[in-house]
């Protein structure tokens, strides 16, 4: 395959692959992200130390705040929920050979769609919640489909279209929230609050949205490995030419994968709106879709692995304020740690370090199906 083709991201391959014998790829799939995270924490620790704070104490504060109390755990679950879903959105794209950078835009459109469905109707909760969620997913899917159609039928790079559609989505939701859908008689750009019947409940200290996110991650893990459609996604992702030769409708599959990806991002926005923010306000959703890229890459495009990856990001984000409160370290240090993690996961530094000997023995560890 050609190096310049942006659709050929081979992250899917590093998944535990039932077709390939041997435990090494499986070990590698776990080891690379874990070592990357540890390295990022080590470098982040140096940064913290340079500011005159004991990094062990700083990390203890960070994790103790997030995991040491039921409020902290609730906050971590709340923060992780949309991240699991946007991580899955990017993952589905990667598995099909698509790099969906537009999860942020799809999430925004899904969030405002769910907000509208949430405040504009009065329905029993059993109907209202699924309806509002489904409408948010539909909005996200529709938004991603613009890029999907262009990619599948006009060969326009989805990297370019999704990143540009992010900007369009931001302008669109700003317009909607400041004009047709704006809450009247107050100066802030936001929609009215969603009806109580559309609000996602908490089960004890577990938000319903978190359970939804877990269920969706498990579903897609099954879907990608155990269904025909999932097989088509994977095959197109590995080699569209082979897929075409095997009789898989490549264009249709690419379009479908993009729509599913958008629906997942839209679901993230819907769950966030109905479960946490209670209305749409543009500033509430900043960065969630971009974190999804980090999470999908950290999870090496494995749906189940998005859960721990999102929890890690959730812990860092929810502990950041306490970190500043207790140590004076600026909250952006967690962004530095996440960015470093991403660099280590994505760049082959860690795999080179880890796998030097192994790669010499086994000529190709992760180039299997793609064939460079």
């Amino acid at each position, binding site marked *: 395959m050609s190096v310049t083709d942006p659709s*050929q991201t*081979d*992250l899917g391959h590093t998944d535990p692959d039932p077709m390939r014998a041997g435990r090494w790829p499986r070990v590698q799939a776990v080891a690379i992200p874990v070592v990357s995270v540890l390295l990022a924490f080590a470098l982040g620790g140096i940064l913290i130390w340079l500011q005159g704070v004991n990094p062990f104490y700083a990390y203890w504060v960070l994790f103790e705040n997030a995991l040491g109390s039921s409020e902290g755990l609730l906050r971590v679950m709340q923060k992780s929920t949309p991240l699991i879903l946007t991580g899955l959105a990017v993952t589905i794209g990667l598995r099909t050979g698509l790099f969906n950078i537009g999860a942020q835009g799809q999430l925004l459109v899904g969030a405002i769609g769910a907000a509208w469905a949430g405040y504009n109707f009065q329905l029993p909760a059993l109907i209202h919640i699924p309806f509002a969620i489904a409408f948010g997913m539909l909005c996200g899917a529709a938004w991603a489909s613009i890029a999907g159609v262009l990619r599948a039928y006009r060969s326009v790079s989805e990297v370019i279209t999704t990143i540009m559609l992010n900007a369009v989505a931001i302008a669109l939701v700003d317009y909607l929230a*400041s004009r047709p859908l704006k809450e009247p008689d107050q100066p802030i750009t936001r929609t009215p609050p969603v009806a109580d019947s559309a609000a996602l409940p908490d089960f004890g200290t577990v938000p319903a949205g978190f359970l939804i996110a877990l269920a969706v991650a498990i579903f897609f893990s099954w879907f990608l490995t155990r269904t025909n459609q999932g097989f088509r996604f994977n095959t197109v992702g590995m080699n569209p030419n082979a897929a075409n030769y095997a009789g898989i409708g490549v264009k249709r599959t690419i379009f479908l994968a993009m729509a599913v990806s958008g629906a997942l991002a839209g679901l993230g926005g819907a769950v966030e709106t109905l479960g946490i923010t209670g209305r749409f306000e543009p500033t*509430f959703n900043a960065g969630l879709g971009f974190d999804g890229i980090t999470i999908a890459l950290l999870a090496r495009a494995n749906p189940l692995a998005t859960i721990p990856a999102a929890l890690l990001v959730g812990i860092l*984000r929810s502990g950041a304020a306490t970190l500043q*409160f207790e140590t004076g370290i600026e909250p952006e240090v967690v962004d530095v740690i996440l960015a470093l993690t991403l660099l280590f996961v994505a760049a*082959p530094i860690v795999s080179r370090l880890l796998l030097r000997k192994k790669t010499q023995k086994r000529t190709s560890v992760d180039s299997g199906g793609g064939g460079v």
Partner: protein
Amino acid sequence: MHRKILAVGIAAAALFLTSCSSSTGEAAPEPAPAASEAAPEPAPAASEPAPAASEEPVSAATMDDSDCAAPANICVGLVTDTGKVDDKSFNQAAWEGTKLAAEELGAFSKYIETTDPKDYANNIAQFAGKSYDVIVTVGFLMGEATIAAAAEYPSVKFIGVDQFQGEPIENLAGLVFDESKAGYAVGYLAGLMTKTNKIGSALGTDTVPPVKLFGEGYKAGALAANPDVKVTLVYHEPNNAFGDPEWGANEARKQLDQGADIIFAAGGATGNGGLIEVAKDPGAGTTVFCIGVDIDQFYTVPQAAKCLLTSAEKKLVSGTQTLVVAAAGGSMTPGNNFGPTGIAPYHDTEGAVPEDVKTKVQEVLAGLEDGTIDTGCPACLDN
């Protein structure tokens, strides 16, 4: 294979980093708008801090917040709106004021920078959980979270900077300003400075009272300085009133073309669009000027420095300081507290303003402060 993963990863990392940096904004470690403001502030004369505390300036290094619950220890916390404490705007000014108050009180002070608006309540809870005595929250977007927190933590005193209070709450003081006074002062300056006897404006919506107070004050001040001046007040429609820089730029351009030589731009991004447009005029800083609003916009909109005569300023530093000291001393007034207003330094246009004009503006500022000058507001809201 590796090369591809690398390329994707670097692209993603770059994206991630840019998305982060844009949210934090450009933060430079420069001195505050406070520098200009702190100087004329009266020294904390009456209540000398206890001898032990006055030996060296109170700072995070000499005190900590491990025992804020003890009556002798005063702890003051500040939660920023999304943004940094060196944003050269509301967050920074409120923090400067809080620090000055803490020095005056011999108190411990600390801040948390909010990165996600969903964390307002949690960030306030960090301080409340440590028995802080006074918590300052910045910006009208935090108004609802502050009211909720005031109900949840009745023993903590809250100060909402730029938060208008409807029903007064016992432990919550909102720092607000009489915008008509600041508007009057810059209007007076504009009335003296105009050569064409035409001055204009690009304002956020008149359905938001503070904006209308700025505008009406501006008009009244200009007419008081120069009865022949023609003042154009243009308000944005209510929707998206503060987020429309193109409209601000178009209005400014239109009025300059019609012969106005000073534009007062007040209304968030809408107004900033107007300021930047005026700065592009060939006569900017010599024959054509702009006037900013709220804080010293020389720092917040450096692109407009060339034309920026001054800004109709809410003195957030001293306003916050006064309220924090009152709250810590138990003399806080619930509900709305009016802070001082004024005008920002002239900066780059210093040389363009004649000395006698500066003197007259100083007199007007003094008159506004002691109440001998009436801006005609709030009755002007009915205009």
